[in-house]
């Protein structure tokens, strides 16, 4: 007998319908899986066999063939276990075939028949909704994620539960909905003492979505500060939150209880990260850190220590807001509109900018260190702040303003920038021209100062960009040895 189950394979973030056809016929007992299944998918044979037996169901002891169609699409991962098992059970008459055809399904089977959740459930559920399938059978702890797609998620803990439900014997286990939204890691700007200028720059970066480079000797809190940027960013709108969650789902990074990522994500890959880890790709075409930071913050700590190719690969997403990973078999687009925050020491030994230490670097060594960053990448930083080592008295200073106090200002500035972006007064224009002349700003440097000045004005809720806004923006320009 022939039966069919429906699931979806993700190509990048895009769900593609896959029909799992099972054919059970008389003959020498054998189990064949065809349809361009990768290794994890081929192993489904062993898991499905054990799972069906553990669920006290009957293994079709005949010649069974499972085909994953369309055959030209490569199938990856263990999410096909459940549809394969269900299709086999329907083909051997243990569950009604018509009812199975009304459901999409996905999930990995354990040898004892329990169901494990897999990455990309949200994508599968969205594919089902678009294909007109209202119900998705999935692992119980993937329920919250699947229901974000607006489908009815049938969460089951065990294959036997899925079978009982499809036979109409029991209702699916009740799914207790949580509020579904993930929480922001509890990092507050109030923890940062002193560092007034860097704090101010962080607020500007948040308000204007400016990329920012923090320089200074090690241990002064550059990273600590950068990690607190998400806490002053506005929460994501619903559409954006879904988009971010979709990416994180593919990478298997969502919290089962609170799947919806409603805040700006924050990613801080280590400087040993490969190009594929940062921009995505690899044999399974996974989103990289740049995509996981979509609509959020990508922190590159110790920027100069990253491999040059990995940094250069970031230029495309910084320009276009997305990454195109091209393969011989086709290309995949991952969104990657992130805010880039970089930190670096002022010299390779790290002592520069620290009054209490002697820098031992030669001029050539410093030049080489700074040359590791291409001009094209440095050009992307609108705000450059050098943070010298604070004196001990600064650290005794009272706690700074908390994130909850800063965030409303950031939100208000963003509204202003979107609705009525302030433009420069003639006096501000005159100051900018004078600055270009006296401080030797390049054309691009001028544009960056102008953009930051607009953010400063918006943050002050000013009608226009006044000279004092331009003057402040000038203080965050790149120093001449980093400028282009």
């Amino acid at each position, binding site marked *: 007998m022939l039966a069919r189950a429906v699931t979806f394979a993700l190509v990048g973030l895009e769900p593609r319908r896959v029909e799992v056809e099972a054919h059970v016929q008389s003959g020498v007992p054998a189990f064949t899986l065809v349809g361009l299944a990768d290794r994890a998918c081929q192993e489904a044979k062993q898991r499905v066999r054990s799972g069906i037996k553990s669920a006290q169901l009957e293994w079709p002891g005949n010649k069974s063939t499972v085909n994953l169609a369309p055959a030209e699409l490569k199938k990856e991962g263990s999410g096909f276990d459940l549809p394969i098992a269900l299709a086999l059970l329907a083909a051997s008459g243990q569950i009604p075939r018509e009812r199975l055809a009304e459901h999409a399904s996905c999930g990995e089977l354990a040898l004892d028949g329990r169901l494990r959740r897999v990455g990309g459930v949200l994508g599968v559920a969205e594919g089902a909704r678009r294909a007109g399938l209202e119900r998705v059978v999935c692992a119980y702890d993937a329920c919250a994620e699947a229901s974000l797609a607006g489908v009815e998620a049938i969460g089951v803990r065990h294959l036997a539960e899925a079978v009982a439900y499809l036979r109409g014997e029991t209702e699916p286990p009740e799914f207790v909905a949580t509020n579904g939204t993930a929480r922001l890691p509890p990092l507050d700007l109030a923890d940062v003492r*002193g*560092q*007034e*200028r860097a*704090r*101010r720059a962080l607020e500007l970066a948040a308000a204007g979505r400016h990329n920012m480079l923090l*320089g*200074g000797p090690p241990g002064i809190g550059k990273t600590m500060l950068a990690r607190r940027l998400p806490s002053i960013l506005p929460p994501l709108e619903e559409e954006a939150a879904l988009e971010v969650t979709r990416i994180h789902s593919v990478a298997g990074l969502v919290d089962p209880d609170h799947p919806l990522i409603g805040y700006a994500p924050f990613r801080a890959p280590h400087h040993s990260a490969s190009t594929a880890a940062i921009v995505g790709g690899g044999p399974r075409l996974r989103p990289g850190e740049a995509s996981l930071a979509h609509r959020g913050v990508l922190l590159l700590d110790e920027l100069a220590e990253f491999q040059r190719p990995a940094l250069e690969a970031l230029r495309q997403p910084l320009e276009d807001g997305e990454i195109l990973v091209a393969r011989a078999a086709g290309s995949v687009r991952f969104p990657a509109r992130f805010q880039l925050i970089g930190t670096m020491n*002022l010299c390779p030994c790290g002592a*520069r*900018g620290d009054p209490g230490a*002697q*820098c031992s*670097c*030669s*001029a*050539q*060594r*410093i*030049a080489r260190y700074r040359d590791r960053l291409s001009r094209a990448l440095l050009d992307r930083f609108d705000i450059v702040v*050098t*943070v*010298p080592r*604070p*004196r001990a008295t*600064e650290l005794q*200073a009272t706690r700074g303003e908390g994130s909850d106090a800063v965030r409303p200002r950031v939100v208000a500035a963003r509204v202003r920038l979107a609705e009525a972006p302030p433009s420069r007064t003639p006096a501000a224009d005159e*100051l900018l021209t*004078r*600055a270009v002349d*006296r*401080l030797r700003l390049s054309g691009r440097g001028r544009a960056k100062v102008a953009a930051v000045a607009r953010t*400063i004005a918006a943050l*002050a809720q000013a009608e226009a960009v006044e000279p*004092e*806004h331009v*003057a*402040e*923006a*000038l*203080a*965050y320009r790149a*120093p001449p040895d980093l400028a282009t």
Partner: protein
Amino acid sequence: MSFLRRDELPALLRAIHDPPRRLYVRGDAAVVFARPAVAIVGARACSPYGAQVARMLGRQLASAGVVVVSGLARGVDGEAHRGALETQGHTVAVLGCGIDRDYPAAHASLARAVAERSVLLSEYEPGVEPAPWRFPARNRIVAGLCAATVVVEARERSGALITADFALEEGREVFAVPGEITSALSAGTNALLRLGATPLTAAADVLEALGIESEPKAMTTHPLLELLPATADELARRTGVTPAALAAALAELEIGGLAAEGDGIYRALA
């Protein structure tokens, strides 16, 4: 491309005990040799303080009509040349390689600017590679061209001290810029001061030694300038001004050429 024979060299350079046999020239040597010259030398890996002082001296000496002589190296040398060029003054770069070589490569455009405005000099034939053992010989020309040599920042065993030694041997004036006694970059200059070099406290000190009248500067004082050097955060705390307003005030000072920032620390440019 031309060269000067020994008898065409300026008198000061001819007077040293081993003047170069010939000097290759890129640019116009005649304009430059008619004026008083001062060498500004120092560390390549200088601190922001050294860079700012070198630039300030280059600017102020050049605007008083003095030719600023240096070696086109990174750090102090380059800043001194740049300072002089900024005020449309004259500056001479003496190279330790052929005048057609861009060394260091990062200063290729600076070398062009110097040759356009004033002159590049070298006793080596065009095409000669830069080599460490050529630099001391170059330094004797730097010192030899000048009535006075200013050492801005130097470690204990620095090439700038060799220049100062040549200047002393020929009986020229040597100035040293005082630095922090705890800084290795000031060890060489402070040692010179101990040995009797004249401390340099302002460009006027040099002009006075050369017998040049320096017009008294219009004093533009700003309350912030008295608190420098300091970081922006220290200033914010001492003045009680918001970081935003303070950043704006400091940028105004930078545009006015009254202060400069380096590695996060603001310094007054007297």
